């Protein structure tokens, strides 16, 4: 049962279809209702909005979607997506709903609170109230409001003061096949107290090639001296629409390291937003995007330097094949009095095909005078001298191009410290290069 939606009523209509949430938990309900109002009041973005001018959302709103809670599915074995390092440090969500059967957290220290947001609300609602929706300062952002308006299940982890968690934690979001397109949201809240350390793997997996609309929101708070490593892998269905928000707040001496790997989805949008809350912090917001066919991937990042002494690093690499389209808009804010900022930003694009498209826009707004901000953007093809060099060593055209593409992509994943994730991504890069090069015999 589906009815065509107009652009403005698109998200409010989706919300009205999800009726299963009504009457659950007062704290969440309050947030939900406020957010529902926000969704109604906020206009849906279009190409006239500066932040949306490079991509079209027509594919998204011209379709009709049912709530994920109404999808009938038979679940195949999903254990192949479990990271071995996180065998007992894993939360699994299937079409947005928490699956306790597939989750296990017994490897984590007792002091760590981890679980489904909906369950945590029951146990300790007031604690959650102090943190939930407090870090994702996405003003006037209809998609994060939409996510909050759907708030129910979600991943929660709280690492208290001084606890260093060695075991990496996997948040696995499985999207199943379905007869109709569906919409789903996922929420994640990560709290790292003073001197806490945690490694997270946020993993979005599409099991089939069906269409769905996924809106994940991740909020991360780092207190003083906290260290959070966050790898996001987006391997959604090639027909999926993935519109994501990630917010991180950092206090003094905190260090946030994030690597976002975009492989799937027909249309994906990532909006990492890093906010410095005190002096002397460090963060990394690296990204790797591998596109093919008619995929579109858009990254709009904000690195907000509000206090002095910050080292920030952003290396965003994209490989574009077929008729795919990559967008990068990296905003770097350095507020007044935020001195001694050392910020590095680079967007490198490797175009493998003639019909690929790249839009890149570094955007620096600096209101302090003692800062070093280096930024750059490049768009290029494989270097023919490098190809000749490798061929003269006996590698054929295919091997040479594959090796060079692989080398280009590798730089962004070699810092990921979870071995199986790094191996997985190396395999993904190999698959991508051999697949794209086969399709396109080089002249």
């Amino acid at each position, binding site marked *: 049962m589906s009815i065509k939606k107009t652009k403005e009523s698109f998200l409010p209509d989706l919300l009205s279809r999800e009726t299963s949430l009504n009457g659950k938990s007062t704290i969440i309900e309050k947030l939900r209702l406020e957010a529902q109002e926000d969704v109604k009041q906020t206009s849906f973005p279009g190409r006239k909005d500066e932040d949306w001018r490079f991509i079209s959302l027509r594919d998204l709103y011209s379709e009709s979607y049912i709530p994920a809670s109404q999808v009938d599915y038979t679940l195949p074995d999903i254990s192949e997506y479990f990271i071995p390092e996180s065998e007992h440090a894993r939360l699994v969500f299937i079409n947005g709903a928490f699956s306790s059967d597939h989750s296990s957290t017994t490897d984590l220290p007792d002091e760590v609170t981890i679980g489904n947001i909906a369950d945590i609300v029951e146990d300790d609602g007031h604690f959650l109230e102090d943190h939930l929706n407090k870090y994702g300062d996405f003003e006037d952002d209809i998609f994060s409001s939409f996510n909050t308006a759907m708030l129910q299940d979600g991943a929660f982890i709280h690492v208290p003061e001084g606890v260093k968690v060695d075991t990496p934690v996997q948040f696995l979001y499985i999207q199943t096949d379905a007869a109709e397109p569906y919409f789903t949201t996922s929420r994640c809240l990560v709290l790292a107290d003073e001197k806490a350390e945690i490694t997270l793997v946020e993993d979005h997996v599409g099991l089939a090639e069906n269409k769905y609309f996924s809106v994940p929101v991740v909020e991360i708070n780092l207190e003083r001296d906290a260290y959070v490593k966050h790898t996001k892998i987006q391997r959604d269905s090639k027909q999926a629409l993935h519109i994501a928000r990630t917010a991180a707040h950092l206090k003094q001496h905190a260090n946030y390291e994030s690597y976002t790997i975009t492989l799937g989805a027909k249309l994906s949008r990532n909006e990492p937003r890093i906010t410095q809350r005190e002096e002397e912090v460090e963060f990394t917001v690296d990204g790797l995007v591998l596109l093919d066919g008619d995929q579109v991937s858009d990254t709009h990042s904000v690195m907000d330097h509000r206090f002095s002494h910050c080292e920030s690093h952003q290396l965003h690499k994209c490989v574009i094949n077929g008729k795919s389209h990559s967008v990068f808009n990296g905003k770097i804010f350095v507020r007044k009095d935020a001195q001694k900022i050392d910020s590095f930003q680079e967007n490198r694009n490797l175009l493998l095909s003639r019909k690929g498209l790249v839009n890149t826009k570094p955007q620096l707004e600096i209101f302090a005078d003692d800062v070093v901000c280096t930024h750059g953007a490049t768009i290029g093809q494989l*270097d023919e*001298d*490098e190809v*000749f060099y490798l*061929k*003269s*060593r*006996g590698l*054929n055209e295919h091997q040479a191009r594959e090796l060079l593409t692989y080398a280009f992509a590798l730089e962004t994943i070699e810092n990921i410290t979870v071995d199986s994730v790094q191996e997985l991504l190396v395999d993904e890069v190999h698959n991508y290069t051999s697949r794209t090069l086969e399709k396109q015999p080089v002249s």
Partner: protein
Amino acid sequence: MLEIKNLHVEVEEDGTKILKGVNLKINDGEIHAIMGPNGSGKSTLAKVVAGHEAYKVTGGDILFEGESILELDPDERAHLGLFLAFQYPVEVPGVTNKTLLREAYNTIAKERGREELDPLEFEDYINDRLDIVEMKTEFLDRSINAGFSGGEKKRNEIFQMAVLDPRISFLDETDSGLDIDALKVVAKGINHLAGEDNAVCLVTHYQRILDYIVPDKVHVMLDGKIVKSGDKDLAVKLEDKGYDWLTDLASVSANGEQQ
């Protein structure tokens, strides 16, 4: 082994004529040196033999073991046993020396009907070859030429030659940019690798490397032609007298006849 016959070459892009009738024959077990000033075409000759696509052969032929290789891609020529040590070795960040060499070695081995080596066997083989150019094992795990000094890059070229064991190697200005110690190491490596069933062709601007590697034949290239050939004494004469005394020869030998 290799025979170049009346080779004419121009730049693919703009038609500039670079080689204007080069004749050269290199036999098994020989070391040749091609000398000449900048712009004489000697580096182009080396690249054309390797199959660089920026150049177009407009006349003549290159024969390897009696068969023309003009239609072959650079990798197919490498499979036959041709090797080019680059004047400016390319940096390939992200690909380690070891990765490239194992893939290259096994590809060539397969084409030449030799046994491919598994990673452990290859490790033994490659460590053995490192000594030839006095390189440390760490070199293997570094990205190809990325951040290497000029001398390290040149040594790495000779190391690759040592691993791939080619039939004929063109070494393009391998001596340039080397200090005397590095030059000795490189020369020693080349002497070690030169044998009865392979051949080496040094392409060089200076006579300096020939103090350490004694060539069987020396050729002088001027304006796209080989204008004079001789033995090692010719190199010494060039060092003393420069190239000017040969420029007249360049204008008379219309299609590069010599010998």
